[in-house]
């Protein structure tokens, strides 16, 4: 959106020209003498450059993390089958869920009223792992092996009971689509570091053979009312990862270079005549596009990855569009300067498939998630990279379906307690924070609301969530609306 100068992120220390991107160097090279503050302000509001500097008052606090990789699990993973071990749930298997655990609560239209619904034991057994002794289900053997790196938040709760609103709430702070998402806020607040790659990248995947994929709406990585350059760039799961990246058939890179030089030369002439700074923005925009054409293939060329690294991510790592491939790309992206990478993996909506498709789902995500954390750690990147694994809500500890029909066992949407894990980036490793009740029904101890989670995440990146705001339609908006508290106890 075209907003007052005051709100534009690019507005920063007008003296610090050394920090400006190429187009500005270019621009000042031509007209350094003739430009003053207001014109500079206007110039900085234009955004052809890939790089951008963040807000001048940031960071608000010392940042612990510089980058984020969010492994978003669309569809809502079942917390009591994976992370949140509740022996009583197994003991009560087949008996009705006690009324006091759900009285007055809203459930999806599929469950409506949980009265009489039978408790369903965890499908796989849990065991303790590592020095921390964290309980992890047999569904997730690989993740279990890095339990000492992880901080499990077991007292998450949210407000939405449907997927799209739930995901939107996690990523944008509002259930209705259209608000800026986490990555857009980070790009706006902290700026974009990479000259050659987008600062905010999104990749999606879905397990093969899953029957319950939810659509990846583009508002999950939208910039809302923030300038649209802060929008996430979706890397595709097939063909060129970036749309229109490849030169046209028959046009060699050399020829393209020549053509771009001609375009730039004529744009230079135009700039001399017309004096519009947007023209030099255009020149750098086209340069950046050219650079992306080489940096993206370089990014996706994994031939230089050592075999043991590829092996660590599992058999699907070389297959574009899989979660494993995306995890490796996420690491490569942040190595090359991207700030925020959002992987979205669909298929966790096990309404009738906790004994079937849940296995596929775990198989496809467990090993790559582990590998990513380990890989980052081995490269010394985990220290200032925050990795998050979690979905939009949890699943009912009681059954959806017929207790006598094991192959069709399922669990419905459940917003009142679920688990998310984090690793690296200033979070205490090897702990579990908060707790749900003895049936995994409700978060009861050290409850963490979605807005608290968001506030904490921003805090780790050096941002006070109450002070990262943007004025739109006359109102100052923020990611956490008017709520949210930083969960101090999990900070390292």
């Amino acid at each position, binding site marked *: 959106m075209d907003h007052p100068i005051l709100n534009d992120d690019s507005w920063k220390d007008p003296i610090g020209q050394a920090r400006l991107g190429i187009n500005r160097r270019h621009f000042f090279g031509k007209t350094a003498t003739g430009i003053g503050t207001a014109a500079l302000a206007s110039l900085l509001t234009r955004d052809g450059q890939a790089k951008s500097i963040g807000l001048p008052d940031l960071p608000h606090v010392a940042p612990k993390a510089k980058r984020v990789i969010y492994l978003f699990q669309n569809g809502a993973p079942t917390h009591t089958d994976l992370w949140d071990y509740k022996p009583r749930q197994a003991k009560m298997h087949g008996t009705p869920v006690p009324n006091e655990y759900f009285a007055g609560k809203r459930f999806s239209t599929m469950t409506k009223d949980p009265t009489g619904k039978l408790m369903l034991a965890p499908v796989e057994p849990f065991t303790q792992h590592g020095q921390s002794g964290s309980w992890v289900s047999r569904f997730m053997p690989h993740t279990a092996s890095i339990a000492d790196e992880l901080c499990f938040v077991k007292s998450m709760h949210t407000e939405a009971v449907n997927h799209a609103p739930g995901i939107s709430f996690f990523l944008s702070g509002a259930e209705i689509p259209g608000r800026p998402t986490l990555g857009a806020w980070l790009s706006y607040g902290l700026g974009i570091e990479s000259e050659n790659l987008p600062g905010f990248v999104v990749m999606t995947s879905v397990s093969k053979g899953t029957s319950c994929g939810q659509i990846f709406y583009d508002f999950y990585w939208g910039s809302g009312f923030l300038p649209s350059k802060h929008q996430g760039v979706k890397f595709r799961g097939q063909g060129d990862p970036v749309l*229109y*990246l490849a030169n046209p058939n028959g046009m060699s890179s050399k020829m393209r270079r020549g053509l771009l030089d001609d375009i730039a030369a004529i744009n230079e002439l135009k700039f001399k005549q017309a004096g519009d700074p947007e023209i030099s923005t255009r020149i750098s925009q086209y340069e950046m596009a050219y650079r992306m054409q080489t940096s993206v293939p370089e990014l996706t060329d994994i031939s230089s990855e050592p075999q043991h690294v590829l092996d660590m991510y599992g058999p699907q790592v070389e297959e574009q569009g899989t979660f494993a491939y995306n995890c490796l790309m996420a690491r490569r992206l942040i190595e090359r300067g991207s700030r925020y990478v959002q992987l979205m993996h669909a298929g966790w909506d096990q309404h009738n498939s906790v004994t079937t498709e849940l296995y596929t789902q775990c198989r496809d995500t467990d090993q790559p998630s582990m590998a990513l954390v380990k890989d980052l750690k081995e490269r010394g990147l985990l220290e200032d990279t925050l990795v998050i694994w979690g979905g939009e809500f949890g699943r009912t500890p009681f059954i959806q379906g017929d207790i006598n029909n094991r192959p069709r066992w399922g669990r419905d949407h459940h917003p009142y307690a679920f688990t998310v894990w984090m690793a690296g980036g200033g979070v205490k490793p090897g702990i579990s924070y908060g707790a749900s009740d003895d049936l995994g029904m409700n978060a009861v101890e050290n409850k963490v609301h979605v807005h608290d989670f968001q506030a904490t995440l921003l805090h780790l990146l050096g941002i006070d969530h109450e002070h990262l705001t943007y004025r739109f339609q006359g109102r100052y908006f923020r990611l956490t609306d008017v709520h949210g508290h930083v969960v101090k106890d999990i900070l390292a």
Partner: protein
Amino acid sequence: MRKHICRIVAVAFALTTAASRAEIDFSREILPLFSDKCFQCHGPDPKARQSGLRLDEEKNVKMDRDGYAVVVPGASSRSELMKRLLTEDSDEKMPPAELGRFLSAEEISKIKQWIDEGAKWGPHWSLTPIRKSELPNAKANPVDAFINRTLETEGLKPQVRATRETLIRRLHLDMTGLPPSLKEIDAFLGDEESGAWKRAIRRALAKPGYGERMAWDWLDAARYADSNGYQGDSERTMWPWRDWVIDAFNNNFPWDKFTIWQLAGDLLPNATFKTRLATGFNRNHMINGEGGRIAEENRVDYVMDMAETTGTIWLGMTFNCSRCHDHKFDPITQKDYYSLFAFFNQTPVTGSGRNPQTAPIITAPTPANRAAMAKTRKEIASLEKQLGQRARELARAQAAWETNKLDEGKLSPWKALKPVSAKADNQTLKILSNASILVSGKNPNNDTYRVSTKAGGTIHGIRLEALKHSSLFKGSISRSSSGNFVLTSFELRVGDPNSKPVKFSKAEATFEQGGLKIARTLDGDKKTGWGVWDGRIVDREHIGVFTLAEPLKLDKDTQLLFTLRHDSQHKQHLIGCFRLSTTDAPKPQIGSGSDELLAALSVPKAERNKAQANRVAIAHRNSDPAYGKLKNQIESKRNRVAAMEKSAPKVMVMKDMPKPRETFMLTRGLYNKPGQKVSAAVPAFLPKLPKGAKANRLGLAQWLTSAENPLAARVTVNRFWQMIFGIGIVKTAEDFGVQAEYPKHPELLDWLAAEFIESGWDVKHLLELILSSEAYRRSSDVTAELLERDPENRFLARGARFRMPSWMIRDQALAASGLINSAIGGAPVNTYQPEGIWEEATFGRKKYKQDSGDKLYRRSIYVFWRRIIGPTMFFDSGARQVCTVKTPRTNTPLHALATLNDITYVEAARAMAQRVLTATGGKASDSDRLRHASRLVLSRSPGEQELKIWKRGLDRARAQFKSDEEALEEFLNVGESKRDENLDKLEHAALASVCLGLLNLDEALTKE
């Protein structure tokens, strides 16, 4: 952070204006400050209000509060407000630090000055009546009169007029979204007479492209798309509404009529198809087909969308803020919100189901089909007249026919066989009282009937009657949708079901359809048989007669077993009702028809009952070939109309339920938390509904466009201004509330708004007025000084210069290449898009099927818009999910990649090169070709330096392509259109690469 920025701006600002500080204008300088910094806790929302102070109300601010007042007019030193702003005590300080809102010293001194000047109060500027002030210079164009006065005050020197080439391109891009053709450029350049500009404007506004250009912004505002959005994202067919919009702009619909038709065309006293079609406007919202969603929740969402869209487009107010509570800044109460909501809450839309076309809908054939349907209906009427005529003629000849028929009937008397049992493989057979057999049950593709009867005596022939029955398709003789059957085998066995069938020597029928002869039922071939279709749904009974090779002489009650097979490829072509009879006459004849007809014929005419009389008359008419032919013609024309009707798009429209729905305020906006009951009413802070106007959508629409409404004209004029100059007179086109920007040229905005209303809301008049101004015609070149003084060009000392919307960039490439398909309206098209975009977003549920041929080159407005994943070739577009009146304008590398690499542009460059080569001829120099190419995109010839660069580029491309023939072939093969093989390949490819460069120049992407 904000403090920091404010300081910098304040400094820059102070330099120019502080010395000459005029009297403070409350609405312009103070109210926005209060709103931005204080209303959060001291504004219109009573729930958020602290200490009973509301800074939006004069009385409250100035009242005595036990010995002090927040503001004491004329005495800032005694005003509590100043104390609170200036104090260092953090408990007292306003605004509180934790709010993060700070006032600059400049702002505080403004408030002080305002108080000392008497604290004059006034309403927010956009809510005051529109005032047409006197023109500062009566001789100048009104736009210039205001703009020039400001420039003078500001000491800004206006730029010279842009070149004529720039002007004609600017005009055509602005008003048609397409570059001018070479002919249009030359016409303007050649017009040396005075008034040339005016003529150029009028020509541009008269082009059909005008409607398409204007419609784009309207579609963004109306959140138009070709699918519903959300999970499922079913396709819809709202495009006849889109075509209506284009048409309305092209016919220069006055804005009030444009408004009234779209909001309430169904409620107009003489509503027509088109006024109803226009109301599709309000049904363009998203529809949620997600499983588990509650219908009423959806319905409320839709109605909210209607109310909020109306609020944004006509009132420039952010109504959505008041779903849950009174507005924090503007005087919109929650009650106002639901009172506006109530106007739209009367639709019968239910909110349930995934049907992409939820009622109410209208069928909207294309104009061509509508004309064809009307013509065909007329022809039907005329044929029916002829048919009546023929029927009367036949009636006169009936007596003679009857005698004849009766005689025929007597030749071979038939005796019906009473079936003992009747069974089919796949259906149910029922024996009726008149000895006929009726078929029912599921309707299989093929079937075999087995009937057992008893008979005795001599039999020479068997008669099979196919009879009409009301339970069959349209009362015909079969269950197929043509009323026809194909009987593939007719067998008779005597006594033993395993015996050989008896032999027939001959078979005859009342009618045989082409090669489907009755004799083929006896040939043993499974595929062949007897059919009776004669061009229309079969509407009469048919008879087949089988003559036995040897007469049967039977004992009493001998069992006769009949087998009727239907094994043809024609599905469901099964006899629906039939009867079997025998005759002892040696030469069996078809006779007069069914027994019933014969019986009726035997009754003297005067004594026949109605059914009998009808039966005879119909049989007579059906025996007449001329009558049959007329019936066939009518039938086929009816089918054509029905087919057009069926294939016509359905458009969702507005309608009010006969019994009004009650409306309640919804607590926190939740559909299931109704509060106080409200009725339809316009917001209390605006003028009332005109006298006599009903409190329905029609009344609302009339009120919006009444001369008293202070907002509609201002907001609309501002949007047109934004379209032309890139930024509105009020920058916040979507918000004219207290938090809005104060208009840069307030008197001009009002003057234009007033003129707009006075002209009868004449859009073209308004545009012509703006386009005729010098302000519009200035060169967009900018000096460093001007850039410094007015970086965003708000004063308009220079012409507007900004990157065109992506859709316009595409249309420009299509136009320059000559590929463009200028057809107007019609179903949306799927143009080039990288593979797998829809599939990836929907897990393969939506498959993208690219169109081909000239559909690929239709203007962008006709490109299919899938709501959950819009066309990838467009960037910085409205998302078409909710009302958007201002689209972003950014420059990212991804945009450059699109215009450099998308097939659309590469193919356009190749076609453009072909166009240039063909137009300039084989002997043309490179310079000639480059000049021609440049004019196609930029409307101007290149300068010497540019020519040099391009020529060098051309040579380089020649060398590169020459050394790589494969690349050359590949490059020329991009896109579906065929190249002219007479052109030299190397020359073509080299020039095409330069054309791609031309299309990507900053100047090409920019309206300047």
